[in-house]
C-alpha cells in the first residue's frame, strides 16, 4: 500500500482540484470546494480500481478526513 502522500496525490488528480487548494491528511472532505456526491463516486471508483477495495455510501458518511479514508482503504486492503 502506498503512503498517505502518494494517496493524496492520486486524490488531488482524481478530484481535479485547483492548485490553490492543498489537501492534507487532516483535510475534511466536506471542506473541498463544491463537495458533492460526485466526489463520493470518484472515491468509490478510485478505491475499487486502484486498490481493489469497496467503500460504501455508509463508510463515506461516517468519515470526515482524508486520513480516515486512507486508514480504511489500507485496513481493507490488508484484510
Amino acid at each position, binding site marked *: 500500500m502506498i503512503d498517505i502522500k502518494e494517496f493524496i496525490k492520486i486524490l488531488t488528480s482524481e478530484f481535479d482540484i485547483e492548485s490553490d487548494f492543498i489537501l492534507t491528511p487532516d483535510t475534511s472532505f466536506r471542506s473541498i470546494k463544491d463537495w458533492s456526491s*460526485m466526489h463520493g463516486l470518484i472515491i468509490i471508483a478510485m478505491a475499487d480500481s486502484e486498490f481493489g477495495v469497496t467503500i460504501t455510501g455508509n463508510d463515506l458518511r461516517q468519515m470526515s478526513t482524508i486520513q480516515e479514508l486512507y486508514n480504511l482503504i489500507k485496513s481493507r486492503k490488508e484484510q
Partner: protein
Amino acid sequence: MAFFSTLHTTIKGIAAAVPKEEISNWDYEHLSESERKMLIKTIGVEKKRRAPKHIATSDLCFEAAKVLISDLKWDKKEIDILIFVSQSKDYFLPSTACILQDRLGLEKSAVALDIGLGCSGYVYGLSVINSMISSGGFKKGLLMVGDISLVSCNYKDKTTYPLFGDAATVTAIEYDENAEKFNYNLGTDGSKFDSIIIPHGGLRNHANKESFDEIEFLPGIFRSPLNTALNGFEIFNFSIDEVPKSILEFFEKTNSNNNSYDYFVMHQANLLMNETIRKKIGFEKEKVPYTLAKYGNTSSASIPLTIVSELRNKLITEKVKFLIAGFGVGLSWGVVSFSTDKIVCPEIIEVE
C-alpha cells in the same frame, strides 16, 4: 447465474425514437456552474431529450416501429409477436403491448405482452422474444424497449433529474434456421430492490394524499414518494462489482474474450461507472461507444439507442459482433452476445 443460449433467430433491424425537445445540464438550475462542470465531467451527461406530457413511451415505440416496418418491407400480417419492455407504461392496466398491437394493425392472432424491467430490459427482452420465436411457432417479432423517465424525476432532485433522458427503440427479429446463436448470462438481486424505486402508487404503498408531498430528503434535494429515488452509491458499487464478474464468467462459459467482439455496448448508466467497468474487463476505448453526452441515461432504451446512434453505418454495411451488458433497477442484470449482418437501421427519429 443463469447461462443459456437461444437458436434460430436473427436481428433484421433496429430503430430508435426520441422526443424532439433537447435540454442541457448547463441550464440545470439546482447546481452551481462549477457543480455542473463536475457533474458533466463525472457522469458524462450533457444533453438529453425530454418528452412533453402528451407523448408516452408507447408513442415513441409506435413511431419507430412504423419506420422500421416500412424500411424492412415487412408484411404486418407476418408479425406474430410483440413484446414491450418498459417501466413507463400507458396504464396500470391493460398491457401497453395490447394497445400497440392494435395501433400497428397487427393480426389478432399476434401474441403481445409487457415485461417490467429497466436498465437490464434489452437483454431480458431479447432472451424472451428469441426463446419464443426459436420455438418455431412464430415468424417475425418486434421487441419494443424504452422509457420516459424524466416525468417521474423531481426537477429539484439533483441526484436524479440531471441523469435521465427519454427514448424508445424497436428491434425486429425473425426466425432463421441458419442463424448464429445468442448467448446469455442473467442475474437478479432483489435484496436491493429499494436502490432505485418509485415508492408510492403500487399496491405496496397505495397512492394517497401524502404521495404528492415534496420532502427535503437531503439539504437541497426534494422529491415526493411518487418520484424516482436513487441510491447512487449502492448502485455504483453493485455495478462495478457484479457486471465485470458476470462478463468474466460469460467469457469463460463461451470460451471467448475481448478480442472476440467488435463492440462492447453497455447500458449508459453514468460515465465514471461505465469507464470503471470497461477498464476492469480491459476493453479498448474504441470498442465501447457512448451516448451519455447526447442522450443521458435512457434506461432500457440506452443499449439499442447507442447502437443506432453510434454504429449505424457499420450496421448497414457490415457484419458486427456485439457483446452487450444491461444492469440496474431490480436489481437486475444481463449479458448477451450476438451478431448482426447488414441490417436495416433508420436514422434516429424525432417525435414532437
